[in-house]
C-alpha cells in the first residue's frame, strides 16, 4: 500500500510517516496540494492520501476537489487530517469527495482505525 502524506509541517509529516511506515505502508510526502498533484501527475499512484486542510500554495480542500475531478484517480482514498473540526468544514470535505476525516491531535490508533475502516490496513493480532 502506498500512502501520500500532504502537510506543510515537516513535524506532522514525520509523525504520520512513522505511524504509516510501522503499519507497513510505503510513504511519500508533499508539502502542499500542488506538490502532491505534481507527484501524482508524474506517475505516483497512492492508495491513500492523508491531507491537511490549511497549507500554502494549494490547500487540502482544493486538492480533494482536483483529485475528484480526474477519473484516473477515482480509486484513490482521501483522508483529511486537520485541526479544522467545524462541522461545516467536515461536511464540505466529505461532499467534495474525502472518505474520512481525522481531527488533530490524534493518536496512532485513531489513524490506523480509520485506515482499517477503509479496508486499507489489517491489524495483525499480537
Amino acid at each position: 500500500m502506498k500512502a501520500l502524506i500532504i502537510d506543510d509541517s515537516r513535524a506532522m509529516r514525520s509523525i504520520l510517516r512513522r505511524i504509516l511506515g510501522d503499519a507497513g505502508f510505503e510513504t511519500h510526502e508533499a508539502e502542499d496540494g500542488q506538490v502532491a498533484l505534481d507527484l501524482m501527475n508524474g506517475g505516483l499512484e497512492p492508495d491513500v492520501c492523508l491531507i491537511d486542510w490549511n497549507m500554502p500554495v494549494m490547500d487540502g480542500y482544493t486538492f480533494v476537489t482536483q483529485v475528484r475531478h480526474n477519473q484516473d484517480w477515482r480509486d484513490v482514498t482521501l483522508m483529511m487530517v486537520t485541526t479544522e473540526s467545524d462541522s461545516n468544514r467536515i461536511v464540505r470535505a466529505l461532499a467534495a469527495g474525502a472518505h474520512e476525516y481525522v481531527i488533530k491531535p490524534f493518536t496512532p490508533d485513531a489513524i490506523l482505525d480509520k485506515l482499517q475502516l477503509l479496508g486499507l490496513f489489517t491489524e495483525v493480532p499480537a
Partner: protein
Amino acid sequence: MTVEAPELWDVLSIAGEVWTSFIGPDEPLVPAGEEAFPVAWSGAVSVTGDWSGMVVVEMPEHCAVAATSRMLMIDEPSQADVSDAVGELVNMVGGNVKCLLFGENSLSLPVVALGRVTPPGDAVEVCRADLQWSEGPLRITVHSVAQSGVTS
C-alpha cells in the same frame, strides 16, 4: 458547543490533549504558577472572522528542544525541526481553540519566532495558561484583537 471567547479551562483541556497525543501519555502537562522564564521560542496563529485574536505558545530553549525530540522521536533536533514542531503545536492548539468559538472563523498558518512574538498593540489578553511538564515550563496565551496580525 461554542463560546464567545476561550477560557482557561478550554485552553488547559486542549493543550493537555495535544501534549498527550504528540509528546506522550506519560508526560502530563499540568497547570503551574506564573513563572518567569527566558522565552527562546514562540509560535502564534491568528484567528480571523466573527472573533479575531491570536493564540501564542512560548517556551524556553530546553523545553522546545525536548518537546521536539519527543514529538519527532529524534535525539538531536535541528533548529528547523524545533521551529516546525513549535509551529505544529501552536497550530493544533490554535485550531482547536478556533473550533470552540462562535461564528465563522479562519485560522492562519503558524508563525514561529526565535524569542517573543509580539501581538498587535490593540491586543487584549483574554486567557493565559502557565503550564509545566517534566522538561520545564511553557505558556499559552490567547489575545483578542480588533484586527488580526502578528509581528515577530
